[in-house]
């Protein structure tokens, strides 16, 4: 951790209010450097969205941050101070969520909603803001922006709505964009367009991106570094090259093998490799390592001692028995 990081999350713990025993995030640490893309990967319930909501100070009402620091450019983010956070959200950190329709207000025009972000943070006239909005809509690749600006969200397709949400997120040229499953609700051809748009925005504005996703294809295409999460823990962190070439944690290896790979049809046997069992309930986690009940390498040690995060080669991994798996097909 040093002063060059844009975002530092240190030992973040998030729990349901009043429940000291259960935790959604159990001490998660990672950082984002300026201009890089960090992918946060994991299956539903692993806590990947909660980490980003905690950064924005937008944890759902029933949850609270128990401990841990969130630093932005080396300074603590005032995540518990909503007034102070309003100056950060949209200005320093932009957000794009999974459901563009849920992020847009159905009763206001596109132009009104994008301009609102600009007017919140910058002292310019409504007319100037409108010109900026038209320009932004053009930049995110929407056809005839001077017409779309006066449309309502329901008149746009899902991909167009997500472009509008991206325009809002980029309106004040933030340093960091948090994209939480930004294309999960979209068709794959539209997904490719949105991802190219994010890449282009990153190159032009030099913004850093946290891409939260379960899609390892997107991770491979977009990310510089990857954090893999399981049941509220970071289980592995590595550069994208290292992670795909030599995953260390059995869960990462399982995820990679369970991902369908086109053009590599398996001869005979089952169509896909599976990870047996399922993600444990947060209210009833297994002792020791959370992945133990599903892990082929589990030993007595894994039952009793929770594995600490440690460095193995170029990888940070939380496992008693890390190691490369020879046949990731």
């Amino acid at each position, binding site marked *: 951790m040093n002063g060059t990081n844009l975002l530092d999350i240190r030992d973040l713990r998030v729990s349901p209010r009043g429940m000291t025993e259960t935790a959604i995030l159990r001490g998660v640490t990672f950082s984002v450097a300026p201009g890089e893309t960090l992918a946060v990967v994991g*299956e539903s319930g692993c806590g990947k969205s909660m980490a980003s909501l905690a950064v924005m100070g937008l944890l759902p009402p029933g949850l609270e941050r128990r401990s841990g620091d969130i630093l932005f450019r080396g300074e603590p983010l005032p995540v518990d101070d909503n007034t102070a956070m309003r100056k950060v959200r949209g200005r320093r950190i932009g957000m794009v969520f999974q459901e563009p329709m849920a992020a847009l207000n159905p009763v206001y025009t596109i132009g009104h909603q994008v301009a609102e972000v600009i007017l919140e943070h910058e002292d310019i006239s409504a007319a100037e803001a409108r010109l900026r909005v038209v320009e932004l809509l053009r930049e995110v690749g929407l056809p005839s922006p001077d017409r*779309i600006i006066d449309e309502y969200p329901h008149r*746009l397709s899902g991909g167009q709505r997500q472009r509008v949400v991206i325009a809002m997120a980029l309106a004040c040229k933030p340093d960091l964009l948090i994209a939480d499953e930004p294309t999960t609700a979209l068709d794959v*051809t539209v997904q*490719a367009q949105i991802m190219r748009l994010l890449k282009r925005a990153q190159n032009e504005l030099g913004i850093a991106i946290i891409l939260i996703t379960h899609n390892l294809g997107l991770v491979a295409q977009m990310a510089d570094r990857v954090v893999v999460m399981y049941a509220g823990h970071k289980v592995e962190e590595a550069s*994208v090259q290292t992670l*795909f070439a030599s995953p260390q944690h059995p869960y990462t290896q399982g995820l990679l093998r369970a*991902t*369908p790979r086109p053009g590599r049809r398996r001869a005979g046997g089952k169509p896909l490799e*599976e990870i047996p069992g399922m993600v444990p309930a947060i209210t009833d986690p297994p002792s020791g390592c959370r992945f133990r009940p599903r892990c082929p390498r589990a030993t007595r040690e894994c039952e009793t001692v929770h594995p600490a995060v440690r460095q193995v080669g170029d990888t940070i991994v939380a496992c008693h028995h890390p190691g490369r798996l020879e046949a990731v097909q």
Partner: protein
Amino acid sequence: MSPLLKVSDLHCSFDTTRGKVHAVRGVSFEMQRGETLALVGESGCGKTTLARCILGLQKIESGDVMLDGQTVSGLSRRQLRPHRAAMQCVFQDPFSSLNPRKRVETLIREPLDLHGVGTVAERRKTVLELMERVGLRPDWSRRFPHEFSGGQRQRIGIARALALRPKLIICDEPVSALDVSVQAQIINLLYELQRDFEVSYLFITHDLTLVENFADRVAIMYLGQIVEVGKAGEIWRNPQHEFTRTLIEAIPVADPNVPMRGTRTFCDARVTVGGSS
């Protein structure tokens, strides 16, 4: 021997406030016994409407659907009933497709009750066998759907679909709502059950990578038409239609050494702003 399913020049359209939407435009295909045919397309291409037409849940405009040599399209509900046992379906959302107020044993037994299969005791036995077969513990039979995870609920849905020993199961995006690791479990389960139950799957999905390893043949659907049909591996290696090529290029490959593709664009007829129809 006649094909298991034969769909001939099927048309289906809806009247909407913005005019007539021609959802299925002259679709023809055949499926053999024990075959898995994947129907792949993007949202709004008509793949689910086509499935509903085959199941008799949607009125068709013209064309025929033949199951096992018998015409099943254009029948009244009463006439269709005996055929329903032969074609079952598994839906996308295991949360909304199971009645939350019914116990698992009831949910799986219901098709047997409706079709009057066997005695009460026999049906109970069948339910427990089915639960075991799809990887659910039989002692969970008194539980309600909310007590199960998404993957387990999909197993309940599969057991229910298998109860009547159908010849065809239409699976409409059965794993789209599930996590990657669970998705693989369900695909493998369907694959194993196919051998034991000698059932054919019409597998509807938007995810071409998923069916590459699973289906025998793949049909690509675009704007209400099947634009390409081929063997699963062939389609991927040697796509013929421009839309198939666009689709394949847009899929992000889980390998950081493969550069991002998807620069190809295909005429998007679904742009809605200012759209007239």
